[in-house]
């Protein structure tokens, strides 16, 4: 046990030491890709009607008149000092913009994962228990649909059904227009609980419902498929056979034997799900006008706001790398079969 802990510790150290290299590669790639991409932030800021003099002045003001090499060196220097620079379009510190938008994305992400688990796990289990029967086919169809449905279309359908036809949920935004919540953490649900404000809590939940249901449904296929496969594998294992022969009932076998073992590979998949969440969230945030990081990223790309795009990509990468690292450590810690 002690030796395994030491191995896990060494493995963690190696993984952590690789993070700066990962980040350097990502930040360099995004820097180069943005400069190669056509378009100019000056046009996005001044519009096409500005004269050459105004353009040049703006270029100097934003430091874009310097050579790419100098821009790159300055960018890396700033990164080492944890300075993501200022947004080119509104001159606000990138870190501030990210700080304001990140809680909305995390809130949406967390609830979407919860929805995905709530939909995916029962579907996977029902499918397995009714193998090759009606419910299995239904569960498979739902699972495959969640992969196949384009997020923007899914989002629009949800809006059409729940907002336009049934009129039960708000079509977009993060909080009721008429209400005001003095947010301290940026997480509206948490804030409303901390402030004991039921109206704000209801408002935040209502606004979160549609985007998180949509994104959660789109991610649920990953969970239903993986649970089905891993649970099936677990049920075929010796320890489940042994438990069955000892007369342990089905419910106990599921809870105490099959499910915990099936969960370990799902941890790994959760890492992938979070990465795909970042991609899926973009379209969901845009469609539902959810003021999160993905929406900021889309706007920053359209405006060719180099600093903001770089900042968002780096922060998102850090989050994804950290979560994956955490999952790796957890798996290493909980699964004695895994050796490092």
């Amino acid at each position: 046990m002690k030796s395994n802990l030491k191995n896990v510790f060494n493995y963690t150290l190696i993984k952590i030491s690789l993070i700066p290299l990962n980040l350097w590669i990502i930040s360099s790639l995004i820097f180069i890709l943005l400069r190669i991409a056509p378009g100019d932030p000056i046009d996005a800021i001044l519009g096409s009607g500005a004269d050459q003099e105004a353009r040049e002045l703006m270029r100097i003001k934003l430091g874009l008149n310097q050579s790419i090499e100098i821009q790159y060196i300055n960018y890396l220097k700033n990164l080492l000092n944890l300075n993501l620079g200022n947004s080119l379009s509104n001159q606000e510190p990138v870190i501030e913009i990210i700080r304001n938008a990140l809680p909305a994305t995390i809130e949406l992400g967390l609830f979407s994962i919860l929805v995905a688990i709530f939909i995916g796990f029962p579907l996977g289990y029902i499918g397995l228990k009714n193998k090759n029967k009606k419910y299995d086919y239904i569960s498979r169809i739902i699972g495959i649909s969640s992969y196949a449905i384009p997020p923007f279309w899914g989002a629009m359908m949800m809006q059409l059904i729940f907002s336009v036809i049934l009129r039960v949920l708000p079509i977009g935004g993060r909080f009721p227009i008429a209400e005001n919540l003095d947010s301290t953490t940026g997480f509206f649900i948490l804030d409303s609980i901390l402030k004991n404000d039921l109206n704000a809590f209801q408002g935040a939940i209502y606004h979160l419902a549609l985007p998180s249901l949509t994104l959660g449904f789109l991610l649920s296929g990953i969970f239903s498929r993986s649970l089905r496969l891993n649970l099936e594998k677990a049920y075929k294992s010796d320890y489940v056979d042994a438990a069955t022969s000892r007369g342990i009932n089905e419910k106990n076998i599921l809870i105490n034997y099959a499910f915990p073992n099936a969960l370990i590979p799902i941890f790994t998949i959760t890492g992938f799900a979070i990465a795909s969440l970042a991609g899926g969230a973009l379209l969901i945030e845009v469609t539902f006008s959810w003021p999160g990081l993905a929406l900021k990223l889309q706007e920053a790309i359209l405006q060719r706001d180099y600093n903001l795009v770089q900042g968002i990509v780096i922060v998102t990468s850090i989050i994804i790398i950290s979560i994956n690292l955490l999952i790796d450590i957890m798996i290493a810690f909980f699964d004695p079969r895994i050796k490092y």
Partner: protein
Amino acid sequence: MHKKRYLRKIVLLIFTLVAILSQYACKKKINTSQNITIASSGKIESLDPARASTLKSYQLLNALGDTLYGLSNEGELIPKLAKSKPIFSKDKLKIFIKLRENILFHDGTPFDSSSMKFTIERFQNIGTLNYILNKKIKSIETPSKELLIINLNNPSSSIEGLLTSINLTAISPTFYKDHFDKFLNNNFIGTGEYKLKRFSNEIQTLSPNTIYWNKKPKNNGINFIGYNSFSTLYGAFISKQVDVLLSNSIDDTLRYKLNLLNKKNYIRESQSEPIEISFISLRTNKIPLNNIDIRLAIAKSLDRELIRNKVSFSLRSSASSLIPLILKKDNSVSWPDFDPKESKRIFREQGYCDGNILNLPLTYRSNVPTDKLIAFYWQQSVKAQMKDCFSISINGVESTTIYKNLSEGIYPSVILDWTGAYSDPEAYLSPLLSCDKFIENHCLKGEAVFSGSFWASEKVEKLFKESESLEGVERLNKLLEIENLASKSLPYIPIWTSSQKAWSQNYISKPTFNGAGIINMSELLKNEK
């Protein structure tokens, strides 16, 4: 079997209960505001007049602040913070503006000439669009609290139009003292009919300014909300989650649907005077478009009526001018009309047709849905009527990329649009036609390069200069002469003009606009639903 049926019934019952409960609960939550909720596309990055550059920020700043002058629906200058119309010195290098007295900013400090001087100088210092002003204004004097004197570098009659610019909305020097050289994005202290109550990029709340010097707003306040997608915007309006829908960029199919609802009296629709011009820019410095006859033949192949009917469902007006009608009083200058026979005759005369087909690469902004349809219908119309002489190949490129590449002369022809930075014919002509450096008719440096036409004319430059020292009808005639020259040389082909549109629910009064296409928020009135 019984168990299954029983289970189904329970599930159905739960679903129904959840639906009823959520409907009951949510009806309470969705749009319960006493304010009027206006939805528009996109978000507001900044409420700083020095940074404002989008129609949406102009709309808000117009409600929160006042400029020296406004523009009537007839295009006339209306004094707002100024007491009377500007008076020019004999040499036209000084403008005397008398200011209203007893006006207070939202922070309680008084408005006077020094605050106007602060506003203008701050815009000159940090304004994103300060290039529209910097070459014109030399200095500003404030001999008394009620008198502002603007010294000009050269005679400039367009300065009148510039004084209506939302970018010059008066701001409180006391409040902005630490922001003379930097933007203040999330707050605003001006003199307007509304005060800013709450600001986020997505939602802004305005409450009536009880100490406003002019007519007070008719409503209890405004919620201004931004949605990112047209479908969300449309859905929010149709489901009555918002009271007013305001957008000139909403998809034409949705505009048409809303127009039909208006005709059935389900909603109310209104529009501003057309202020946005869509046009095709032709690269005149390279063959074959350096040939004026080819440009004429191309211009005559454009079926504006077809495009208007098919793309905008006849909801936009065809344009045969680069200046919106409101700014030129009459329609004396006109671009060539659609005439496919004449177009073919010219192409034939220039050695095309009968096996030698001129192919025009036409670029459109892929992120502007109407541009794609314009390009498509023009392409198909040409294919149907003159395929033996002329063809069009269309190519979509994202707008930011197009703007970057325009000055590099990459696109032989490109569909663009333009709204003047201020309400003056010059604000439409100069950004398209003026040129600082040119050889014969080829512009090497200047606005015509950035508009992708590369067309220049010595006479046009001369007329621009002459117009600066003129006023009124004489000046307008000079500018129309410039437009006339452009209509003969055809560096651009106007397509249509667009209006700012607004739709309101039946329980809201019909929206109205001022001459600059800005909605009059204070006129909106909410009746009982």
